[in-house]
């Protein structure tokens, strides 16, 4: 069991409204990622769910029970903190046991749970060490272990990989994904890294300035962003936003939806062609597997193109680009998505 439902959740600090009317349903066993730029309220939202903070108004339901006024300890959730928050004066084993002791769990069951978690995370050799003697990756595992032994209704993970170096982050990401598959537990994962979000999530919740912009599986988010913000936030490099005039050469006989004032084209969807947009190259970044080309259009608008493999071009040269009209996104004056008719 691990259903979580948020109803009209609001949180203000004094005059500042950090969360504005959040409504969200998280299904059992789902891995939901909260993503958004810093200050968007994603960590605050997680803290409301955890019970470490109380919302100004609105309700939180866990398994259909109103948990809004239940204390953090009694919500049955476990949290993995950004800094791991391991107790520095306790050994790894004591760290794992602390919460279980507080719950007055019988020793036999406690040992059983700890050995199961230890086995799963392969941290057996570390049990007698203190957090100060562990590497970043090991601390991360212990922090997750501390959550696992609690056998929680849901896991809350607050940017758990942000303190690791790039290489470790990729491998831990894969492990987390495997762990989720194995445990089948509900997980809520907060990050500002869209790659983490895309690779881990069953569904992504995109937040901006305390509001949910879109909730959708990763691919939907990529293919059908509901507005310009989501379109720009998801996908790397960022989507090109161009006026209708700029893209006139490639529109051909595609029907421009009514109300559309702007198009969005992902850099990956542009390719060199005989006819199309005329671009002057300003910078070429050869990454080996792909080449990122920066350029300007005749109107002065900047544009990014990524082309697989290596492309021979250099600053000052002209390129002609085309795009499959199916990959064109249209936005109206309010920056909302409008579908082609």
């Amino acid at each position, binding site marked *: 069991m691990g259903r979580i439902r948020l109803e009209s959740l609001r949180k203000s600090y004094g005059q500042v409204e950090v969360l504005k009317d959040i409504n969200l349903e998280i299904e059992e066993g789902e891995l939901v990622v909260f993503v958004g730029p810093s200050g968007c309220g994603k960590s605050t939202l997680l803290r409301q769910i955890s019970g470490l903070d109380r919302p100004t108004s609105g309700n939180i339901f866990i398994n259909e029970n109103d948990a809004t006024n239940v204390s953090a300890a009694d919500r049955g959730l476990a949290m993995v903190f950004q800094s791991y928050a391991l107790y520095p004066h306790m050994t790894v*084993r004591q760290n794992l046991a602390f919460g279980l002791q507080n719950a007055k769990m019988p020793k036999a069951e406690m*040992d059983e749970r*700890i*050995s199961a978690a*230890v086995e799963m995370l392969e941290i*057996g050799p570390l*049990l*007698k060490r203190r957090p100060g003697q562990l590497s970043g990756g090991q601390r991360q595992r212990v922090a997750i272990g501390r959550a696992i032994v609690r056998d929680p209704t849901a896991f809350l993970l607050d940017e758990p990989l942000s303190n690791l170096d790039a290489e470790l982050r990729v491998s831990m990401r894969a492990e987390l994904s495997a762990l989720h598959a194995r445990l089948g537990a509900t997980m809520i994962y907060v990050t500002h890294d869209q790659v983490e979000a895309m690779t881990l999530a069953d569904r992504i919740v995109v937040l901006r300035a305390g509001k949910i912009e879109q909730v959708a599986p990763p691919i939907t988010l990529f293919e059908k962003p509901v507005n310009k913000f989501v379109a720009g936030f998801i996908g790397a490099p960022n989507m090109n936003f161009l006026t209708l005039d700029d893209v006139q050469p490639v529109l051909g006989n595609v029907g421009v939806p009514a109300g559309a004032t702007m198009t969005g084209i992902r850099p990956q969807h542009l390719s060199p062609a005989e006819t199309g947009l005329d671009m002057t190259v300003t910078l070429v970044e050869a990454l080996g597997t792909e080449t990122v080309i920066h350029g300007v259009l005749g109107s002065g608008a900047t544009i990014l193109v990524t082309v697989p493999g290596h492309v021979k071009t250099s600053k000052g040269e002209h390129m002609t680009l085309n795009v499959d009209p199916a990959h064109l996104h249209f936005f109206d004056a309010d920056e909302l998505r409008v579908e082609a008719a």
Partner: protein
Amino acid sequence: MISNEKTTIGAVLSAPVRWLAEAIDIPMRWWQGIAGRPGMISFFLIPNLLIFGMFVLVPLFINIVYSVTGGTELFLSDRSYVGGAHFNRLLECENHFNPNSCREDLFWIALWNTIKFVFTQVSVMIVFAVITALILNGKIRARAFWRAVFFFPVLLSPVVVGLIWQWMLQRQGVFNFILFQFDAQAINWLTERTWAFGAAVGVSIWAHVGFYVLILLAGLQAIPRDLYEAAEMDGTPPARAFWRITLPLLWPNLLVVIVLALIRAVQVFDEVYVLTGGGPGTSNLYLTQYIYEVGFASILRNPGLASAASLIMASILVVLTLAQLGLTRWKDKK
């Protein structure tokens, strides 16, 4: 297998402590259940605040009441309002530089003695401390040992300090023996006015200088070494390096230390009291002893007068403390 944790001595020792904590936790959880987190905050704060209020705040208030009421009674209700009479009595003088012309001549003697003491003691001590700190910060071995040598008397109790020096300075003491070796006249260190004042200053410096050496040394060690290396590359002579690098960078620390030393010197009492009893005559009578004697010891016991005197002393301390807070803030900003 992971549960084969060996029973260590630490675990054995910590077991009763943990058991105690668990036992206390039962009523605590009950209380937290009733009063919530705010209840626990009060629980954590109340013992300290209660003692603090009882023994710091209430006396502070009573002090003010005492200073404007008369009589020898201690209960507030038994005392009659006299307004500023105590302050008038303390401050009334024909010539403030001549204690004999004052109505409360002992107060003015104590005040002027204190001022004289503060200036001599602080200036000599700070110079001594700076030189010592500079030397300890130099290229020497076993710095920790030398630092300990100078710091050691700081921890001694005033009674011990007073008695050690009384023994050294008595007529047949080791100091007069040294003089005797040089065929010099023996000196009555503790019974001649000038020498007794000098002895009080000297002993007080001996007892406290190590503390200031320690703080100044920490300040010196915070000055980056590469500044001196850069100066050396520029061919700066050591004296110039001291005036242009060390002193400016140490200055904020030094100011704070000076004010701290002033604050403490104003309260001079115990080691001098043990050393000379405030004598000979009134030559080592300082403000704290005046308050103590008027408040408790003297046949003319007058709590109101003592309170008024202590408020005057407190106002001196408040000015110095404000100066210190200001300087600390200024130092932190730098």
